[in-house]
């Protein structure tokens, strides 16, 4: 499986060029993703500037413990993803390390989703879903929670796609259907995974810290 022709695809004549193109392509796509989340964060910013007190009050209602633990979980998953990607650079020597790291990444991602699920359940119990019977009196607080559900939801969808991609790679490597060393698919998946983490790094202060800083 270390045979180059096994991973060389149309229209490429040269494996290094193909690898370079895959990385270049995913960077362009990540630029697109930055604008995707950027538009959401811009919406958040506009609403927060219009309703500063309501956002502070709403931010205090979030559960910072869930948020902080999840941040740690997700950042650790980025570490294992980066280790998998670096270990794969060195070829077959670290096959088991690569497989272990990929598995850890998926499991950490799953842990994030599960913890997020507990948090969502608590939010629903506390009537923090916009609409009739919303817990907080301020109008802007509904905006905060509207965006909260949307942004975390979109982030969770991205994370789930990432988990599917990483699981697939794990399975293909485990079955020896793909070569590990210098695999462009692994590099591309790793870059995508890191984007999902970076988005969370922006979301954490925007969701959990308003109203708590002072």
């Amino acid at each position, binding site marked *: 499986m270390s045979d180059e022709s096994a991973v060389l695809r*149309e*229209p490429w004549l040269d494996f290094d*060029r193909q690898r*370079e*193109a895959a990385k*270049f*392509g995913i960077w*362009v*796509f990540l*630029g*697109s*993703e930055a*604008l*995707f989340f*950027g*538009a*959401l964060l*811009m*919406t958040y910013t*506009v*609403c927060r500037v*219009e*309703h500063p007190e*309501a956002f502070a009050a709403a931010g205090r209602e979030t559960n910072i413990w869930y948020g902080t633990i999840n941040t740690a979980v997700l950042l650790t998953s980025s570490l294992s993803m980066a280790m998998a990607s670096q270990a794969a650079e060195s070829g077959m020597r670290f096959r088991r390390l690569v497989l272990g790291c990929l598995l850890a990444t998926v499991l950490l991602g799953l842990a994030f989703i599960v913890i997020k699920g507990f948090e969502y359940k608590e939010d629903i119990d506390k009537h923090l879903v*916009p*609409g009739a019977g919303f817990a907080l009196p*301020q*109008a*802007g607080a*509904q*905006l905060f929670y*509207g*965006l909260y*559900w*949307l942004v975390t939801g*979109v982030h969770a969808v991205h994370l789930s796609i990432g988990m599917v991609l990483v699981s697939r790679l794990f399975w293909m490597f485990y079955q020896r259907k793909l070569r590990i060393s210098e695999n462009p698919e692994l590099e591309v998946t790793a870059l995508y995974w890191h984007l999902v983490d970076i988005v969370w790094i922006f979301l954490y202060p925007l969701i959990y810290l308003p109203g708590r800083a002072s």
Partner: protein
Amino acid sequence: MTDALLAGELPLPPRPDYLRHGSTIASWLTTTDHKRIAILYAVTITFFFFLGGAAITAVRLELFQPNGWFLTSDSYNKLFSFHGIVMVWFFLVPSIPNTLGNFLLPLMIGAPDVAFPRLNLFSWYLTLAAGALTVYALLAGGVDTGWTFYTPYSSMFSNTHVFAAAAGVFVVGFASIATGVNFIATTHMLRAPGMTWFRLPLFVWAIYATSLIMVLATPVLAISLLLVIAERWLGLPIFDPSRGGDPVLFQHLFWFYSHPAVYIMVLPAMGVVSEIIPCFARRRIFGYDFMVYAMLAISGIGFFVWGHHMFVSGQSALASLVFSFLSFIIAVPSAIKVFNWTASLYRGQISFESPMLYALGFVGLFTTGGLSGLFLASIPVDIHVTDTYFVVAHFHYIMVGGSVSAFFAGLHFWWPKATGKLYPESWAKFAAILMYSGFNMTFLPQFFAGYLGMPRRYHTYPAEFQIYNVMSSAGAAVLAVAYLLPLGYLTWSLFYGGRAGNNPWEATGLEWTTTSPPPPKNFDWQPRVDREPYDYHAEGLSAGTDRPEVQNVREIQ
């Protein structure tokens, strides 16, 4: 073949071209050949073009009479909304990039395919799925929000199928992003040896600049539609002022995409015309470098002018002032291009084959549309004509007069390359002239009606505007014939047309060095480039052997 012969190689054995490489339906539906995907797209957008055209035919029929004789207000709203949604996202945005761009980009840079062929096919399937959603929205009862999905029309006051239509546009956006990523990576990574950045044909530059906008603007459209869907479906209050939301925010998000989207529609058209004018004037393009810079400037500045759609929305006076200024600025690179096309004709040996007629039509109509855009960039005039037919006329001059003319120009120019067949030239010339006349008959009266105060999107109107509407509807009938003609004679040419040689127009460019139609991998040998584009004559000379008029005059004296 000449290069291969010069290199001392023997002629290659006959091999099937890309059209005859496989003939089953499955071989088309699972193809990753960029040329076949281009054909799939061409069929798809032709379908949507005539679907959107049918909707507007009913609208124009209705406007024959001022009293609303044919349609109810609701059906009228649904028909013009459907026309706008389909024409913008399912025809204009994919038109040139996904058909001509897909077909030509790899050929023009000397590559065997695009960088990610499977992604290319995936994006076509996304387009189909999105189109199905939007057509479902029509069949299920239609959408009455207008193509802009403005809140609160789309959130509070609409009981129609906004969800399906918005979801369709949301999904087709991902097709757009996938195409953009693919084309950018292709241009960066797959240029043939010697094909440096400043030897790229201007069409490639145009597709590249367009792809940048697709990649960076489309996600913002996705978010604005997602927020509308969330507001309708989940009851989130983002755009609802009674719950602290901000309806103007929707307009900002929407136009942050939709203004650059105008350039998604017109930049590829500029690229097509920049290929055709040098060919039929036998002239190098005038000011190649500045043509490139102008296109990049348009795609960059295009991101900072969205507020000129919102002069009456209640945004701050300062914002309006800045957006107005920037909107005037973006006219500069567009003007550079118009001057350069005109200058490229100077001392050329011009011939008026059908692609050239369409291309010259583009220059005239684009200039008219662009100049009327300056009226709209100026705040006082814009406030007077906001939401009138003046605006309708303006953007149809750019999108229909400009983009669609250029699409037909490109279609006729590269038809022999794509199909290997020649079409009846006199019919094509007739259609080109008819399209130009029909277009002006349709949309010129709308400038007058709009300036005199006829609002857009109303199906009844004061009787004094009837004359303009009758002229417009009559013109639309002519235009419809002009659009149907190519469908007829181009289809005819597929079966009965004469065989086209490799290079029927004697044009420069790598796509003309391979066979018509090209083989599955585009070239039988690795192309190498050692000259500038548009090498129609030696540098510093002109195509003609005659001397300029002015010198002749001097000799006479």
